[in-house]
């Protein structure tokens, strides 16, 4: 419990400072809402926000799950031969560089308004870090251990399952950590155009000059990102605690 204290101190300090600045009139409330106003917006629009949050969560989770599964599968394929890697890796990089906001309208044309577009957007934005980190992990297997597996006649599949994949787990989890945050961002961007969830709430509240509501929705979106990040950390702690330096000590 003691470890959760330090991050709370700046949070409380900034919240109090903000409240004071808005109340004293130093910052006009149509630019930055007072924290108390955000809280009120959260409460007043709780049904709408809860429904939006559920939609965004579902889309972000599905998009994240899809990029986890296909990202790892693609990395396994890419790691199987130098030739395949040279031929296809540039296309994986494409996902990293594609400006999601520019192709989001295209997604609407392909998948229509609603869930599918939002999931696709979350997926596209979050798959690259999974591919890149998994690939690095799979390609940095200890050569001595590879020789050992070869000496005892292990097949490529057995070597993948019993050596390369578990050895790559720390890097895979790093990729998932990055991807989890990006999936939420991708979902929100998709919702701006696809029209549902927290992204849509932000978009509509913005046109109504409801900065407090914008902040309330943004706050929920960040909480969603944090929750996903926490989930990956939990999985990481459970799988790596016995053997990896990153989860040991203290």
């Amino acid at each position, binding site marked *: 419990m003691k470890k959760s204290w330090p991050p709370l101190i700046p949070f409380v300090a900034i919240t109090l400072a903000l409240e004071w600045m808005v109340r004293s009139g130093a910052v006009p409330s149509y630019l930055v809402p007072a924290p108390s106003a955000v809280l009120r917006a959260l409460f007043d629009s709780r049904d709408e926000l809860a429904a939006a949050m559920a939609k965004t969560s579902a889309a972000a989770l599905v998009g994240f799950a899809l990029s986890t599964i296909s990202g790892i599968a693609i990395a396994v394929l890419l790691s199987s031969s130098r030739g395949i890697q040279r031929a296809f890796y540039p296309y994986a990089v494409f996902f990293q560089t594609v400006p999601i906001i520019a192709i989001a309208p295209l997604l609407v044309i392909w998948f229509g308004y609603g869930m599918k577009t939002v999931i696709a957007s979350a997926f596209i934005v979050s798959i690259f870090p999974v591919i890149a980190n998994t690939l690095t992990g799979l390609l940095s297997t200890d050569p*001595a*251990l590879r*020789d050992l597996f*070869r000496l*005892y006649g292990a097949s490529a599949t057995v070597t993948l399952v*019993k050596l390369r994949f578990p050895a790559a787990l720390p890097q895979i989890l790093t990729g998932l950590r990055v991807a989890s945050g990006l999936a939420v961002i991708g979902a929100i961007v998709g919702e701006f155009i696809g029209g549902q969830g927290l992204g849509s709430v932000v978009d509509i509240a913005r046109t109504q000059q409801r900065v407090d509501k914008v902040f309330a929705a943004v706050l929920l979106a960040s909480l969603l990102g944090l929750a996903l990040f926490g989930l990956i950390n939990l999985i990481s702690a459970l799988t790596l605690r*016995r*053997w990896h330096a990153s989860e*040991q000590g203290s």
Partner: protein
Amino acid sequence: MIARLSVADGGRIVTEPEQFQTAFVFQDAHLLPWRTTLDNAALPLELMGIGRDERYSKARAALAQVGLAEAEARYPAQLSGGMRMRVSLARALVTAPRLLLMDEPFAALDEITRFNLEVQLRDLWQRRGMTVIFVTHSISEAAFLANRAVVLTRRGGKIRLDRQIDLPMERTNDLRSDPRLGHEMKILMGAMEEE
């Protein structure tokens, strides 16, 4: 090349019989950190498709031989460097190899640990009746462990000296201060300094 993991540029490798179980031990332990001591020691048998009960009983026996029976449920991160090296040795021994290849396996250990492991290795070698090819940069280690010591040239890998070490078969740490060991070391050192 001896382990048939790479092909020679020229010449031949003659063994009798042609096919036999080989094992090797590297400079560092190279264990799988996500596996317990027991599962690490049983790995070669697992890869060869041996059933669970048989591979565990053989792995336990191999661990007992290197004095690690107590540590079978521990993970490599919970072991000292010397213990990890002994797990690595147990992993090599578990297939009852005819030939054991060792590449400076004790180089990274402190001296006392190394001394004790060397005595253990001699002992295991005598009991198992296997051939051990042991690469080392340590003259005292070579003289202490070997029945036959080969000094190679720095470049080209030519043989500079090939000598039967004239020491008793039973070797304990008492031998370390024996003048006969010093004499053997002097001969090996002489061959190395000719370069």
